[in-house]
């Protein structure tokens, strides 16, 4: 075993390189800047391109152009930058432009606190687009996850032709820790599916099988490619045909929702005899696991579920993992953003008998294991 020592942001950059990312554009912002800084040391020597945009909107525009030219692209920012990204994110969703976007979350609202962590953007990431289309949001809990989930994020993004978010946190991105990158089994790299031309078919840039993303050809290919942010038909030209529009909208939703099983990443620790399951994500899940280990030493068995995929909501997983438990405790580094999704899953699946407790904290410091033990023990 050989350990390296790095912050989560460096791990994201290394994960991106391992995934075959060749283009980065971003704008400096604490606590995400070191992703940019790392990409700037890594991409040029590999023939990749790393650009500082004149602002966040431009950074996204560069990424969109590069992705449409066939590159695997990464960008990184924090909450204030996501605000500016959002118009371009809507474009990337509606026009099926793959990219990975890292949000190293900091305490909000607004400019908030540049060097204080939070998981306050979770629902912002989910609903960041006009039209309310589903998003894929992955949440790392440590540097190793930053590496691994970045690889998954690129895979999901290429597979579904959509932007994929990594909801990191200052407390992961800028915390250095020992990490054994060789210890993880990496997923096989998924590449964008290119259109295979044959004599019988013309390329329609948005023609796709049901619940799937369209096959890709880059701008600059021998076959002409159209890309547009406007409501479009499979040929890439504006349409007002309600049936065509409805089909596209449904496909944009279904391609993500129907992939839920493939997209669901998590860790769980079921302790025998436990009647309580603590559900958490991100850096908070580390304190949760510490708290439950300490409780176990005192003879109090509590199980844990750590969600790595926040969206699309892993409904099946939440139902299955929660089923044996009387009580569900949700801990979040915000004032309660994901708890509603969990309650909705229980409601939809008629799991009305669960006692649900919640603790949220967003004051610039990590939630301590002691606090979590107190919340669990007071139930």
């Amino acid at each position, binding site marked *: 075993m050989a350990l390296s020592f790095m912050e989560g942001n460096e791990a994201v950059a290394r994960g991106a390189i391992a995934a075959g990312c060749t283009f980065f554009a971003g704008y400096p912002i604490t606590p995400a800047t070191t992703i940019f800084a790392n990409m700037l040391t890594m991409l040029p020597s590999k023939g990749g*391109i790393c650009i500082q945009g004149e602002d966040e909107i431009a950074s996204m525009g560069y990424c969109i*152009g590069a992705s449409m030219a066939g590159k695997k692209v990464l960008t990184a920012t924090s909450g204030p930058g996501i605000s500016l990204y959002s118009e371009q994110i809507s474009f990337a969703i509606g026009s099926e432009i793959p990219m990975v976007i890292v949000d190293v979350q900091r305490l909000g609202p607004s400019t908030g606190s540049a060097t204080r962590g939070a998981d306050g953007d979770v629902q912002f990431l989910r609903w960041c687009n006009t039209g309310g289309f589903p998003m894929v949001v992955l949440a790392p809990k440590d540097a190793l996850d930053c590496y691994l989930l970045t690889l998954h994020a690129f895979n999901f993004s290429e597979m579904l032709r959509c932007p994929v978010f990594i909801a990191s946190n200052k407390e992961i991105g800028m915390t250095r820790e020992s990490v054994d990158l060789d210890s993880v089994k990496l997923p096989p790299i998924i590449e964008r599916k290119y259109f295979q031309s044959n004599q019988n078919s013309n390329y329609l840039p948005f023609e796709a099988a049901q619940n799937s993303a369209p096959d890709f050809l880059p701008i600059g290919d021998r076959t002409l490619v159209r890309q547009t942010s406007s409501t479009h038909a499979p040929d890439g030209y504006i349409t007002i045909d309600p049936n065509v529009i409805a089909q596209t909208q449904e496909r944009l939703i279904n391609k993500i929702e129907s992939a839920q099983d493939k997209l669901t990443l998590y860790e769980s620790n079921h302790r025998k005899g436990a009647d309580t399951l603590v559900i958490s994500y991100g850096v908070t899940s580390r304190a949760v696991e510490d708290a439950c280990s300490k409780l176990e030493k005192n003879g109090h068995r509590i199980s844990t579920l750590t969600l790595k995929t926040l969206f699309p909501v892993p409904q099946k997983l939440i139902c299955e993992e929660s089923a044996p438990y009387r009580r569900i405790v949700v801990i979040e580094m915000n004032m309660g953003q994901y708890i509603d999704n969990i309650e909705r899953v229980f409601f939809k699946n008629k799991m009305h008998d669960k006692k649900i407790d919640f603790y949220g904290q967003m004051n610039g410091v990590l939630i301590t294991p002691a606090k979590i033990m107190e919340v669990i023990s007071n139930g």
Partner: protein
Amino acid sequence: MDSFLNTKRPPVFCPGCTHERITKAVDSAFVKMGLLPENTVIVSDIGCSGLFDTFFNVHALHGLHGRALTYAAGIKLSNPALNVIVTMGDGGLGIGGAHLLAACRKNLDLTLIILNNFNFGMTGGQYSVTTPSNAVVGSEFLNQAEIPIDVCSVAKSAGATWITRCSGHDAALSDILCEAINHKGFSVVETLGMCTGRYTKRNQLTPKVIDEMVEHLPAYRGVVEENQRPEYGDQYRKLASDKKNFPELFKVEKKFDLKDVKRQEIVILGSAGMRIVTAGDMVCYAAISAGLNASMKNDYNITVLRGQSVSEIILSPEKIGYAGIESPTVVIAISDEGVQRRAKLFGKLSPSTLVLKEKSVPIPETSANVVEIDFKEYQIKKQDWALASLGFIASRGEGITMEMLDFALKSRFKPAVYDSAVEIVNKLAKV
């Protein structure tokens, strides 16, 4: 090729709109230059200028208002062989002002055709950044309170290498566009035209008036001598090609066996300029060399040369979960600012905690085991206090040993720096 025009999608402009003439001039330029459709991209954004991408049989990207230049830059950087032509209106010009400035400064090989018709045609003829103050437009009196910009002069001052201003009715427009596309670098063609649907209904604007405007405005016709310089893509690739070394992952194998390893929580309380983060790094690398896990959280001011600098380090044989400090085993107090930042910590320390404090640094009352050292007496410079402290804790086996520390210094510092670092850590090693 006779024409690049998409016969299935003919122009849909209002009768008399200058945009239609420009469409034809663009087509004629493409034909004259013998461009290949597959090597050519039109990038457009919102407004009537945003319809251009649909009229041509070339690659096309139509995006958000004012952002066309950003997509175009991403495409061109990714595929330098493409001819990338951008159309923007005076609306896009205003909202995308930062992108125009960036494109001028970069000098990436893009061609920007500005279709300036002095108002927002699509939304009701509101005033734009180029609307004259005395024009009658759809924004009541608002344009009277502002002045228009001369976009060519803006582009020049921002570093554009090729600028032409002309009438959209200029008979030589297609030749001008050929020149613009041929120019290696960022080229700007500002065409002045008539929005017959909105603007000319209430303003006296004819091709003749436009010619007079072009004549009276500062003249821009082609190469801007004083801005000539290498194209951005070439320049970027040249600079980037010198960066040959990928920062390979630095891996540390377990080299030392420690007995009775316990979790350590080490807090270094310093201030800017004391190289606290470097010292923290060394502690962690030392620990990793003994197969321990390590984590380090840093707290410093955004203005990096002032204020506190605090490192919170955990070393543990177990996997580290919560990365906050719960019960410190070692506190290194070498700056008042750092101590103030964590003042509450001291009251909670137990007698088993070692506090190393510099003589000049006051600390709150504590029941910890406090060792005071006068760093000046050992002739240690303030910027080396953190590093010197590591010698003190390593020599006492607090979490790390001297061997481990030496390994960390040797593997992370260049030889010359290593030698002086060893000298520094040794100063307090025997105290």
